[in-house]
């Protein structure tokens, strides 16, 4: 079974704090993704990575950065957390071959920024 894990299920942070969200997958997937999910807006892609040390901006990268130093691990960084970054954050991974590969999601991290 594919397993994608995220470091925290719930986080509470203060405005201006630097926040790290970590994601680990155990299926040797090339691609990894970070999304945020908000009511009425669906899933929106923040960043994705198709290889170690490679990253591409998604639809809403502002205020976020990412790091992929190892194939199995993809980190999302909120440089200076703001209240509008309160959201559910979802990590996903997939194989790269053929293009239309299924994304497998982690359990999510619910972040509250006060």
């Amino acid at each position: 079974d594919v397993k994608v894990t995220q470091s925290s299920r719930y986080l509470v942070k203060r405005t201006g704090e630097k926040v790290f969200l970590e994601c680990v997958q155990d299926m040797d997937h090339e691609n990894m993704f970070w999304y945020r999910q908000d009511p009425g807006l669906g899933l929106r892609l923040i960043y994705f990575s198709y290889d170690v040390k490679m990253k591409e901006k998604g639809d809403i990268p502002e205020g976020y950065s990412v790091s992929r130093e190892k194939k199995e691990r993809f980190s999302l960084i909120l440089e200076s957390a703001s209240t509008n970054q309160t959201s559910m954050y979802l990590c996903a991974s997939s194989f790269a071959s053929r293009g239309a590969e299924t994304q497998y999601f982690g359990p999510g991290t619910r972040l509250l920024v006060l």
Partner: protein
Amino acid sequence: EDQVTQSPEALRLQEGESSSLNCSYTVSGLRGLFWYRQDPGKGPEFLFTLYSAGEEKEKERLKATLTKKESFLHITAPKPEDSATYLCAVYNFNKFYFGSGTKLNVKP
């Protein structure tokens, strides 16, 4: 504009009352259409991938179908444990497009 639209937004069914959820898309160059189930506070769980019009996939009480413009998720004789939000996603040449989901509530 490339987009994925799911309807209805919410659906309440009695246990055993069959129905269908719709996912319509205007995304060009479809390479795959995906259905996920999401329980409250959890990540989406993969259900099906459909690659071409006419394809069908089944799993227990769920059956997914695909045409050139839309996909249906048919739920036959649903049970309360089928209550969840069902998400549809479309992949074209280089991007996934997600719908906003249909929240299904099955009453005993």
